[in-house]
C-alpha cells in the first residue's frame, strides 16, 4: 500500500472523529431513544473497520486471519446477548431494579 493511501485512511479517521463529536452535540434522541448512541457506534465501527483492513493489513491477509478477526466479534456478541437477555428480562420481585 502506498503512502498516499495510508494518508487517505488517516484523513478518513480524523473526519470520523470530528463527525463523532458533532453528531454527539445534535439531539437525535428526539427521533427515538438511543439514536445518538447508535450513530456514535456506527461511526466507531466504520473507523475500526478501516483501521483493521488497512493499518492492520487484514485486507491482504490469509483467510485464517479474517476468521480470527470476525470470530472475536462473534464471541463478544454472544457475551453481550446472553448477559442482556438476563438483565433485560428480570421482572418484579426480589430481582427487580
Amino acid at each position, binding site marked *: *500500500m502506498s*503512502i498516499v493511501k*495510508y*494518508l487517505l485512511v*488517516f484523513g478518513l*479517521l*480524523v473526519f470520523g*472523529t470530528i463527525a*463523532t*463529536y458533532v453528531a*454527539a*452535540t*445534535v*439531539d*437525535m*434522541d*428526539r427521533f427515538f*431513544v438511543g439514536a*445518538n*448512541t447508535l450513530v*456514535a*457506534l456506527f*461511526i*466507531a465501527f466504520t*473507523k*475500526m473497520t478501516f*483501521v*483493521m483492513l*488497512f*493499518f*492492520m*493489513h487484514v485486507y491482504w*491477509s*490469509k483467510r*485464517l*486471519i479474517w476468521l*480470527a*478477526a470476525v*470470530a*472475536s*466479534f462473534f*464471541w*463478544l456478541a454472544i*457475551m*453481550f446477548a446472553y*448477559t*442482556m437477555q438476563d*438483565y*433485560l428480562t428480570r421482572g418484579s420481585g426480589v430481582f*427487580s*431494579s
Partner: protein
Amino acid sequence: MSSHYSDKFVYHEPGLQHQFDDMGQQEESVSIGMWFFLVQEIMFFGGLFTAYLVFRSKYPMAFAAGSNHLDAFWGGLNTLVLIVSSLTMALTVYYAQKGNRNMQVILIVLTMIFGATFLGVKAIEYTDKYNHGLIPVAGLNKKVKAEAGAEHSAAEKPCWEVDHNAPPVEHPNPHGEFIWTDCSLAKMALDENILTASEKNQYLVRDENNKPVIDANKFRDKVRIFFFLYFVMTGLHALHMIVGLGLMTWLLWSAFKYKYNGDYYMPVEMSGLYWHFVDIVWIFLFPLLYLLGRHFIHGG
C-alpha cells in the same frame, strides 16, 4: 564428507527461527498467534464493555450526567493523538518493509512521542477528577477547606435547580472532599417521563406531599458507577499504552541496529497490530464515555 556434516552449513534466511521450515510458515505462525492474542484482548476489554452495557441500560441518566463531567476536548484531542500515532506506526511498518532504517527510527520516535502525549493528557484529566471530587472512592479525592455555610445552602436548594452558567455549587462531604449536587438531567427525565424502571426505583424518594422527587445522594451513587467504569476502562487502556511504549523502545533499539528489512520485519508488523488494537479500543471509549450527555447541553 557426510550429509550430517554439510547440513550445518545449509543456507537459510537470517531472520528464520530454527523451528520453522521457511519464512512463509514463520510469518503465518507469528501473525495467527498475534491475532489470537488480540482476540483474547477483545474479550478482556469486552467484560468491561459488558458491565458498561448492563449499568448504562439501567441508569442512562446517571451515565449521561457523569459523562458531562468529563471534558470532551481532552478526550477528542487524545483520539486525534492516537490516530496520528497509528498513522506513524503504519508508516513504520511500510519503511521496515522497504528496509529504510532512518525513516523507521524517526517514525518509531514519533509514535512514542504521541503515545507519551496521550498519557500526559490522561494525567491532566485524572488530576482534574481528583481536584473535583469525582474519584468514586470516598477519601481518595483532594481535601478542601469547608466554606462556611456552603453545606447548608446546598442542602437547602433542590438538587435540580442548578445554574449551568455559574460555577458549580459544591460542598464538602465528611471526608472533606468536594461533592457536586447536580441532578438536573434526572429531573428533566422525570418531567418527560423517560426514566427507566430501575431509575424510578433507585433515584426517587417521596416528598412531604407524597410526590416522587430526585434524591441527590441516591442519584450520585449511580453516577459513581459511571466513574468506576471510567477509571477502570481508561486505566486498563492507559496500561496498554505503557506496555506499547515498552514495545516501541525495544523496536527502536533493534531498528536502530538495522535488524529489519523486506525479508524480515514481522516484529514491527506485530507491534503495529498491538498498537492499532489499543487505538481501536479508544475509538470506542471516546464516544461511549465522553459524549453521552452532550446532546442534552447543546441540542436542548
